[in-house]
């Protein structure tokens, strides 16, 4: 159909124009313009949320972004991202780095580069009603599971446990859908999201989480492929923040409970190096 062809031509032309946007590498931008755009996940958890009084973003991710910007001597511009938009925004060039609770996995490692030292370790767990009859991960076979669009847990739960994913634009909708009975369990990050719910929120007292956590994977800062210099520079900062206990202090400040054993581990291990 001529209409479709014409549309295709137009959109390819636009795509071609959009490639010209990838002019600077991140380090050049930091050195020349002294600014950096950081994609942070603002989902309503201690990692990223909005302060209702000022409508400004706050949380662990935000604090890390600002701290890195301070050390780089660059002005930090925060852009909020969702699991469903973060990779696209990075690839487009809209953000330079991602501090978005995005765990390392081999598939992502193929298309993006990352800072070698992680800043958190997160595993996923499933939250389900105590009466649902789901006691092990294998019980999820053939059952619908609520999850976030773009989550790294989708493939594991499908391929390893045969669950049927129902992906929502954000974790808040996914959890609401769980309460609405659209799925038997919801799979999300354990420590940042699900454990705090179970601990502090009396509405979730009829729910429990599954053990062991799946894919306990390190959360790293991501950047576009080929930006090794930026990654190396940020790496030195991240190691220092582990060494001087900044991460542990920030974790406590943002109310992340229980304190992550991974952070304590890195704090102990890293001083040995230069």
């Amino acid at each position, binding site marked *: 159909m001529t209409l*479709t062809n014409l549309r295709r031509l137009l*959109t390819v032309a636009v795509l071609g124009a959009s490639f010209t946007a990838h002019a600077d590498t991140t380090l050049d931008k930091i050195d020349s313009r002294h600014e950096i755009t950081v994609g942070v996940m603002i989902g309503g958890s201690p990692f990223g949320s909005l302060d209702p009084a000022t409508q400004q973003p706050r949380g662990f991710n935000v604090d890390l972004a600002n701290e890195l910007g301070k050390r780089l001597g660059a002005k930090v511009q925060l852009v909020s991202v969702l699991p469903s938009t973060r990779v696209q925004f990075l690839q487009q060039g809209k953000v330079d780095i991602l501090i978005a609770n995005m765990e390392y996995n081999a598939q992502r490692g193929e298309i993006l580069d990352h800072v070698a030292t992680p800043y958190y370790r997160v595993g996923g767990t499933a939250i389900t009603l105590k009466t649902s009859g789901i006691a092990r991960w294998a019980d999820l076979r053939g059952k619908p599971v609520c999850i976030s*669009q*773009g989550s790294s847990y989708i493939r594991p739960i499908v391929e390893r446990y045969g669950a049927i994913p129902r992906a*929502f634009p954000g974790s808040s909708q996914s959890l609401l*859908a769980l*309460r*609405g*009975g659209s799925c038997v369990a919801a799979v999300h990050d354990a420590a940042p999201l699900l454990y705090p719910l179970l601990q502090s929120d009396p509405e979730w007292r009829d729910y429990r989480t599954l053990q062991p956590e799946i894919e306990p994977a390190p959360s790293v800062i991501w950047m576009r492929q080929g930006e090794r210099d930026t990654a190396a520079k940020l790496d030195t900062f991240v190691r220092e923040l582990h060494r001087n206990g900044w991460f542990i202090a920030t974790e406590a400040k943002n109310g992340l409970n229980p304190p992550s054993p991974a952070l304590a581990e890195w704090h102990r291990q890293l001083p040995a190096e230069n």
Partner: protein
Amino acid sequence: MDALLHGFITATARLGLDYRFLLDDYERVPFVQGLGVSIEIILSTMTASAIAGLVLLLALRGRNRLVAGLARGFIEVTRNTPTLVQLYCAFLVLNMLITQWLRARGIDNPFKPFFWVVLVLSLHKAAFHAEALRAGFDALPSQTLEGAASLGFSRATRFWRIELPLALRAALPALVNNMVELVKASAVASAIAVGDVTYQSIMIWTQRDNVLALMLLILAFFGVLTWMVTLAGRWLERRYRIPGYGY
């Protein structure tokens, strides 16, 4: 077939479009199923909205003022709030409350997301249908109505045999337009994980980052559907044309 597929993928790769997901069963099968789900949603919503639109119209024109007022109020609310917000309110809030209420009594919630999407979209479009039909009724020539009354037809017969068919014909362009809008609005189902083609595309592009390639497919799909609806509408208009009106 396979050779055709590989040829297509290599050709489009040269343009910068990534269609490799078509080779992966894990991604291709849900995508094709998503096409079917979208069509299911659209057909169900068309039928349900047509029926609901008629019911709303009867309520509006009825003699009971309370019912007419409620219908009017309902139409105003559903026409002046976004479909997405209505969908969230129905599926995330109402559904959750129903589930909790039923669970306390040990019953499973029978309403699935598909049901909520069809319900919300049909009611939304029914309001537009009712408005279009009302405009159709307003356009009826008073001579015809007076003539029918003078022939001793009862109110019900007049409505079903004379007024409604004429009003339908007058309202047909607007109704077809509503149906086209309905086809487009069905994309919003992706927000509550119903499994339509937009949802499946999101699932693929968040892993593969081939937004443009999938966009083109979805646009082509919806383009074909709206084209078919418009053709059907034009055929209906030609078939049921009233001589002496329009051109």
